[in-house]
């Protein structure tokens, strides 16, 4: 029955197989399966649209992985798949050896996920938001009060913690959203554009925070389109364009591979290479 309905309603891209079978543009390093985050051959399509194609990378504990790409490159889709909000069309994702598709609760307990649009409930205060997530993550009652106070102090939420979220500035919301992802002390932090729409000072505050969390042993993965940011804090970088991972490695790796002097030039060179290939 489902199969019939699927045939009637689902539109499968006939070219999908060709896409998937194409070799990656840059040879990827072998995947270390003991890492906190392991993504292998991840492909995701929405109807006719191929959002992510054959993505593989790992993030060991205690390191920061920066996912760089233009708008619409597939960053958000990739990160949502890590959190189990999106199911892979093919390929696998493992967070601390658990699969977000089959064990969403185990994965979500281990994961702090910061959504791209920092959507917070407007009529609820930051303090109440933190309490809500502490309760939903089943943080023991004895611990939750002290954890909330600690996060308020560390992320400097004190000035607005009892005001409704709808009255907060973008930077204040961003800090609240990050405090929310940290409330259950997750082993893996996934942040979708945590510095978007922030000024330099506010962005720097967030990035320093990510560095600190990595030093505390968390595996951190974040996406951005600011190349300077990844350069600043990332241990490894993945360059993503049109759903494909073009290159992966440390900043030095990428500079060496492309023969460029700055990361921006390297990024543009990688993107240009795909254009040439498309035309050819």
């Amino acid at each position, binding site marked *: 029955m489902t199969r019939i309905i699927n045939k009637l309603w689902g539109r499968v891209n006939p070219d999908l197989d060709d896409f998937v079978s194409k070799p990656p543009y840059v040879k990827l390093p072998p995947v270390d399966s003991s890492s906190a985050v392991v993504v292998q051959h991840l492909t995701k399509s929405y109807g006719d649209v191929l959002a992510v194609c054959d993505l593989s990378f790992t993030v060991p504990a205690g390191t920061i992985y920066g996912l760089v790409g233009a708008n619409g490159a597939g960053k958000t889709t990739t990160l949502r798949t890590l959190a189990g909000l*999106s199911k892979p069309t093919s390929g696998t994702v493992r967070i601390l050896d658990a699969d977000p598709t089959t064990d969403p609760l185990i994965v979500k307990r281990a994961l702090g996920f910061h959504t791209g649009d920092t959507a917070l409930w407007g009529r609820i205060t930051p303090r109440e938001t933190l309490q809500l997530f502490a309760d939903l993550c089943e943080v023991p009652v004895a611990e939750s009060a002290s954890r909330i106070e600690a996060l308020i102090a560390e992320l400097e939420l004190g000035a607005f913690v009892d005001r409704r979220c709808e009255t907060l500035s973008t930077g204040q919301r961003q800090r609240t959203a990050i405090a929310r992802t940290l409330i259950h002390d997750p082993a893996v932090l996934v942040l979708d554009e945590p510095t978007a729409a922030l000024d330099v000072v506010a962005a720097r505050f967030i990035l320093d925070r990510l560095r600190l969390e990595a030093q505390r042993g968390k595996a951190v993965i974040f996406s951005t389109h600011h190349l300077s940011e990844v350069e600043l804090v990332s241990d490894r970088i993945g360059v993503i364009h049109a759903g494909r991972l073009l290159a992966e490695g440390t900043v030095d790796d990428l500079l060496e591979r492309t023969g460029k002097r700055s990361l921006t030039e390297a990024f543009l060179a990688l993107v240009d290479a795909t254009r040439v290939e498309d035309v050819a």
Partner: protein
Amino acid sequence: MRPRIVLTLWRKELLEVVRDRRALFLMLLLPLLLYPLIFLIASQVAIEQTKKVRATVPVVGVGPAPVPDALVERLEQDGKLRVERGELAALKESLAQQKVHAVVALPDGFAGTLLGQDTAAVTVLFDQTSDVSSHADELVSTALRDFAKAVTQDRLDRHGLPATIARPLQVTSQNIAPPEKVGGHLLGSALPMLVIVMLVLGAFYPAIEVTAGEKERGTLVTLLTAPVRALEIVAGKYLSVLTVALVTGAANVASIGLLLGMAVVLPDDLRGKIDLGLSGLTLFRAGYVAVLAAVFYAALMMTVAVLARTYKEAQSFMTPVYLLSVLPSFFAQLPGAKLDGTLSFVPGVNLALLLRHVFEGTATAQQAFTVTLATLVATTLVLLLAARIFQRESILLGQGGILAALASPSGRVEPVPTPGQALGTMAVVFVLIFYIGSVVQARWLLPGLAITQWLLILLPVLAWLRWQRMDVSRALGLTRAPWTALGSALLLGASAWYPVLYGASRFLADPTAKPPPSDGPATDPIQEVFQRLLSDEVSPVLLLLVVAISPAICEEVLFRGLLLRAFLRSMRPRVAVLVTALLFGAFHLSLARIVPTAALGVLLGLLAVRSGSLWPGVVFHALHNGLSLLIARSGRDVPGITTDGAPAPWQLGLIVLMLLGGTLLLGLSRPTASLPLPTTGTRP
């Protein structure tokens, strides 16, 4: 499902609603304003109208000449009327032009007739479409009656007779229900409908807010990053919508109550108008129906809103639902609309009809029970659908078509059904029985029962398990049972009918269902079926096959197989047994038998849990049903059940059998040994 998580989500949703002025206005302020306004405006309009009419002095034309002066004097007596004399044709013309408000047409020789002994036929012409004219008619008629009295007195005086000769009787009627109160009763039956419509209106906004609203603002994704199950989110959100609906309903009722309280200080002519003329019990019953309505409509509205991607889309989706909540009310007002048969299972319509019966004072407990059950089944189905939609990422993230997303199979293959899946399957089975089973049984009883059991209960369960590619024998517990369990099932099955029938006899006149002595209708559905079965000449073998063997297999597969084993995944065994037993009791659609049937369900559940197998339950169920049937068929009296009196020695023997069976059951050494107990997080 974790209750604490559900409560946390419920609290969060309510906090948002409470801090939202728009929602608060709809929920609390609107009803508080609405009713006083309705009553005040209505009564003010009435008062103003009356005042206006009374302020003008109507002109009454009298003709043709000669008009006795005494008549004119009587008409103009209190200054309430002004008389204009003239010819009839001219006066009628003036009446049509509203220059004159009423015309008194006198017969020829009117003055002479008055002095004689005959009756003079006087006609009063007026225009009913004009308030002033109607008022004039009232005044003229009163004045003419007074005039007639005076003429009578005159005539009697002339003949020297006492006044009492023309008044052989003095009749006074006293209406204990004033006309306002009759109207009040009509108003009273309209109000609960209004309350239902209002609580649907109250839930309208939060239902959208917690679903499509959250989607549009992107906060739903934020919530989904928390380690919470879809069913928990749906439950928390549903509870908040239900709470708002109930609070709105309560605010409406409170507002009406406040108004009634105010009636004490109101002037007399207003007080009568808002007396509802309803008893407390009727209001309580109506309140119960309103709560059921809230339970159902809150679920329906939220589920429809889940489908929408934006606030606007949700509003357009909701309008039909809103209409759907109003339409049954009109349907229920149709003459001859009655709550019976299939209508009891049509959500919405059954509530409206039950409400009508409540106001007519004809609602029965069995009707309330059936409607409650049907409403709960419909609500469960609707909520499970909402949870299913919630698991569809394309709908959650606002992409793709609704139908495509609904049709795609869920990602994870469960080895054994989850409680939600089992409940959903049971709800589908219930719906099949309500709509198809009741019809086929009404047409052909015995084949109908067989069809219900095998095609409407067993087949859907097996088909669903196959569709989900689950291991049928593991899902249902088709494993070999220990001999002690089978022995216990035999002993209990041979004896348990006695306490069960005894229990039922406390509620029913004759549970073994010999034809009722007074030929009255049986109120209990099971008794009715039994009576019809026994009144036909059917071979006992066939009867046993349909009434004992079939339910033993099919009902056990549904209850002790699918449901109990699914519940055991997330509940403690004793809770799972109890919940299954209650569902089993409710399934039999008989209020009077719910306690004994549920008790039977507990025994069956214990057998299944203790043995880890479905088979002892099947043996017990078959023996139990078979013996009950044979006893009813034999028509023998059973002391303590069909007749009063002390139990016979063989009945005490049954008790001993039961105790033996119970001891064997409790002595089983491997409780829950082969049951599926993986909760969450099973990995291949």
